[in-house]
């Protein structure tokens, strides 16, 4: 049977305009890659938002898979933005094939 290893999958909801701040943090944590998934609307304590790229209110999910230590370093780095910029972060363990890539 094929061999899998455990990594962390981190998912950050951020303003599209501020994506670079998240990916810079990912690179600072020396994680090899990331992937952007679009989102179209949502609701939170600050109310309802909709993807309106004309006015720059759109958000994205930034996904990245990394070893636990790097994942925690990334979470640490992003923590102030979660508070100040309203980002949302969640992470969980996943099995990956060819773990050396992450």
């Amino acid at each position, binding site marked *: 049977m094929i061999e899998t290893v455990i990594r962390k999958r981190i998912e950050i909801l951020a303003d599209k305009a*501020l994506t670079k701040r998240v990916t810079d943090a990912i690179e600072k944590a020396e994680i090899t890659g990331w992937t952007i998934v679009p989102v179209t609307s949502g609701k939170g304590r600050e109310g309802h938002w*909709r993807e309106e*790229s004309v*006015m720059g*209110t759109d958000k994205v999910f930034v996904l990245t898979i990394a070893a636990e230590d790097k994942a925690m370093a990334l979470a640490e780095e992003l923590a*102030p933005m979660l508070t*100040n910029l309203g980002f949302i972060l969640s992470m969980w363990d996943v099995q990956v094939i060819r773990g050396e890539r992450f």
Partner: protein
Amino acid sequence: MIETAIQTFSSPVVLFFVLGLLAAFARSDLTIPEPIAKAMSLYLMAAIGLKGGVAVSKSGIDATVLSALGAGIAAGFILPLFAYAVLKTFGKLDRINSGAVAAHYGSISVVTFVTAVEILTGQAREPGGYMVAVMAAMEAPAILAGLMLARGVGSKDASLGGNRTTGDMMHEVFTNSSIVLLLGAFVIGMIGGADAFAPVSPFFEAGFKGVLCLFLLDMGLIAARRMMDSRSMTWRLVVIAIFLPIVNGAAGTLLGIGVGLDAGSAATLGVLCASASYIAVPAAMRLALPEADPGIYLTMSLSITFPFNVLINIGLISAFAAYLAGPTGVVP
């Protein structure tokens, strides 16, 4: 006045805006797909830029153009100061949000401008083609002024995941997509002139008003939905969102007549001062001032000031300019 109102409300552009407002208030599921809305805004920027550039390539840059440009840029720096003061005191907003909102009111709304040109042209008061250049020149100064008011000159916000200097902010402002496209198309129009413009004019000129209809339909939908969802609005902010366009509009018109513009161009300068940005500035703010609340600045500029300007204030400003310019069309 009544005639102006009739003219305003029989324009398809305005009627589509009203349709958007009504559809959203009736909770219709009508929506313009997101990429289409964005593409329409890019199209409008390119088309306006081209048109202005071609106009200036014809007319050249003379003393009138230069004084109109000077007046516009000065207004772009001064209006945010006034707005900031009103927002902080009467509006009870904090420093950051006051600065952000001030940037919106100091800058301009391209679509309000275009609607005003259409209405003024319908009244035989077509403004000079150089007013597009004035509009373009007024986009950025207020953003800079607003950012400095919100942040202080030369500050850094290391806490927010970066070492962002004033230089970075200036770069973000001037590479903002709508500003790049508006100015870029303006330069293309100037280089190419009317001859080069001819083959692309069916797309950029003949199609313009129709695209504007659908864009305003969308703005109506968004403005009304935002108004219904709004949580951060107070009655004080609503008052300001009506008060600023009236005062700024009158001031801009006076300034225009003062520097020697014709009635149509002076009214257009008034409309530019009265209008609040909801395309270029919000996008720039999200980047350069992310702590500011879009629920405040977008609701004020798009959901209150924009409808007020389109439906009422353009008519008022046009009448005021006509009054100032006198019956012969010359400054009395």
